[in-house]
């Protein structure tokens, strides 16, 4: 009984502490915004709040320039206008902690001890990056909650709930749409016969594979997820018209932001923005991303958390636009991947240092371009390529040191 209380207390003390630190940061943010020139609050948070203001006036949230999110977000944040401007930040930090709770559940469901699960969760709960981002008013933690709840429900085979969260997550931000393939593959009926398989012709194997996709679980999952996604899309299309589709989805699909960002493609797309090659190059940039996503789905769909992690990391690294908030999309899945890595602590820390170094090397010329007016385009381009190379190295290390079978950490503590 004592050990149960002790572990329970440890878990709750960790989560409470993490929440408390975030609330302190939110309060500090209010103070910094009032007293200092450099503001704590993320610029996007003002965009959300302005959009909510329009909603409360009965207008479209898209009257706020650069509001490129679902109206659901602006609706969720209307208490920012009615109640207190920090409501949204408190919501985001709560989501941040709740997403760790789903992480904890997944790790526990894999048979990990409470303490070990807490240890891995603390990588997110006590991570300055996630703390900073959510307390500055960035909405990425909403996505973390939705993605992790989907995975947690999938792990426990609560398919209807998982489908609901998945549909909602794709509605909130389109990047989880790439998880559809691994999700479908993990739900398909598997071949039971294993003897003499090699003799079966390719066409028949293909037909069997496709037939395996037609089962009750898969149809149920995708009808619920599709229903949630289409229902919300229709509702908001009805309310806000074409502008909603344009700003929430089409903008992100056709986005050609030529201003400098972490993407390896930035300088090429900037130089060729007006050339007749622009479309062909855009397609050429899309192909590696697509090929790797397909391959990762086929190879790792049996381990959904790892597959989603790889998907997101590949998607972000090879994307045509990449900013630092995108990194959180895969970092929130890292605590689920780490327990199954056979890398030593030294190797792991080495990769972490390398990842930060890659960003640092990019940030220096980007600073000189943006704030000093020096022409560092070539250096930024080279740093972007180096960062992709570093990400590739890290991904290769992770893939080759990942053990798919469960490493169980059940410890008898009594």
């Amino acid at each position, binding site marked *: 009984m004592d050990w149960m209380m002790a572990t329970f207390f440890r878990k709750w003390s960790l989560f409470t502490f993490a929440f408390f630190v975030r609330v302190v940061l939110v309060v500090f943010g209010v103070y910094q915004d009032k007293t200092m020139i450099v503001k704590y609050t993320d610029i996007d948070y003002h965009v959300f709040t302005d959009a909510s203001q329009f909603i409360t006036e009965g207008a479209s949230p898209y009257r706020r*320039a650069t509001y490129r999110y679902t109206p659901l977000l602006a609706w969720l944040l209307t208490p920012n206008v009615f109640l207190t401007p920090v409501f949204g930040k408190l919501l985001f930090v709560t989501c941040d902690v709740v997403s760790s709770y789903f992480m904890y559940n997944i790790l526990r469901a894999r048979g990990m001890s409470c303490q070990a699960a807490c240890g891995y969760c603390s990588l997110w709960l006590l991570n300055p990056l996630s703390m900073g981002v959510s307390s500055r008013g960035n909405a990425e933690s909403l996505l973390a909650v939705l993605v992790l709840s989907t995975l947690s429900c999938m792990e426990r085979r609560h398919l209807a709930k998982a489908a609901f969260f998945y549909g909602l997550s794709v509605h909130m931000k389109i990047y989880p749409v790439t998880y559809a393939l691994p999700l479908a593959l993990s739900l398909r009926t598997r071949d039971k016969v294993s003897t003499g398989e090699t003799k079966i012709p390719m066409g028949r194997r293909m037909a069997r594979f496709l037939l395996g996709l037609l089962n009750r679980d898969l149809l149920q999952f995708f009808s619920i997820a599709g229903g949630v996604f289409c229902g919300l899309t229709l509702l908001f299309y009805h309310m806000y018209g074409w502008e909603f589709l344009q700003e929430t989805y089409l903008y992100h699909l056709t986005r050609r932001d030529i201003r400098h960002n972490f993407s390896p493609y930035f300088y090429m797309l900037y130089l060729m923005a007006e050339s007749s090659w622009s479309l062909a190059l855009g397609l050429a940039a899309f192909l*590696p991303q697509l090929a*790797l996503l397909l391959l990762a789905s086929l190879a790792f769909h049996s381990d959904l958390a790892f597959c989603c992690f790889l998907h997101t990391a590949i998607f972000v*690294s090879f994307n045509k636009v990449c900013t630092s908030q995108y990194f959180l999309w895969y970092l929130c899945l890292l605590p689920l991947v780490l327990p199954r890595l056979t890398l030593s602590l030294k190797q792991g820390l080495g990769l972490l240092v390398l990842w930060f170094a890659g960003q640092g090397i990019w940030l220096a010329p980007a600073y000189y371009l943006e704030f000093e007016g020096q022409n560092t385009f*070539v250096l930024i381009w080279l740093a972007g390529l180096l960062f992709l190379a570093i990400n590739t190295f890290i991904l290769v290390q992770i893939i080759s040191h990942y053990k798919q079978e469960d490493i169980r950490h059940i410890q008898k503590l009594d």
Partner: protein
Amino acid sequence: MVTKVFLCAIFLVVEIYGVAKTEEDNCDLSGEWLESLKVTRDIWKMGFHRELVTTMECGRQSPEKLHALLVQNLPRGVFVDPYQLASLQQDTGLQALLHSKVDLEAPAYESNGLSMFVYPKRDPGRPGHLQAVVPIHGRYHRPSSGQGWERIEIEPPRLFLRANGCAQHLAVAPPVLMDAPCSGHNMSMCKWMEVQLPQDQRHISLELPVGDWSLAVPVCGGTLLVTLLCCVLIANAIQRHGFQ
């Protein structure tokens, strides 16, 4: 709110009065004072985020009631962020009204110039000085094969004055009057009179870095090569360690 500002800020009436008033009615805003009026312009900071600074030296005798309005046009290479202006209005008391809708992300070659009203305010540290500091941001420009920089020239503003309680017209003949909002937060209309700035007002300029078009082939080749190589390396790792 921005739209309201656009509507209100449109020049309503431009009236030309042919009659000049006598100097006694002008609260010491004599022709001599007008000649002593000095306007200096500067651009602070470097890179893509600058500050356009306009300072008026009115002399110590300038009446407390004197208000100034600058009508500033900006070329397509730079823009002001209306949301930043709104937040600065709260933080520093900057008063500026925009006439046109601003695309915050478009490159220069897909944008239009814009026009704004700026109300300089008294500098408490320097009596007789009015100053406005407006943050401006550079847009991305078309890549060029030249020097690697694009020069953006900002034309001088038009200066308008009004003085509460004084006779409407300063000692300028014929005065050009314009109806415009009385201040950045007071949308009611006031009559403003244009003052010609001295002829030596030049365009001020800033330079922004641009991409090097002559590098297009190596950049495209290098990018595609590296991304393809990285793609192959990851695919190889997946191939070897996946499918279990």
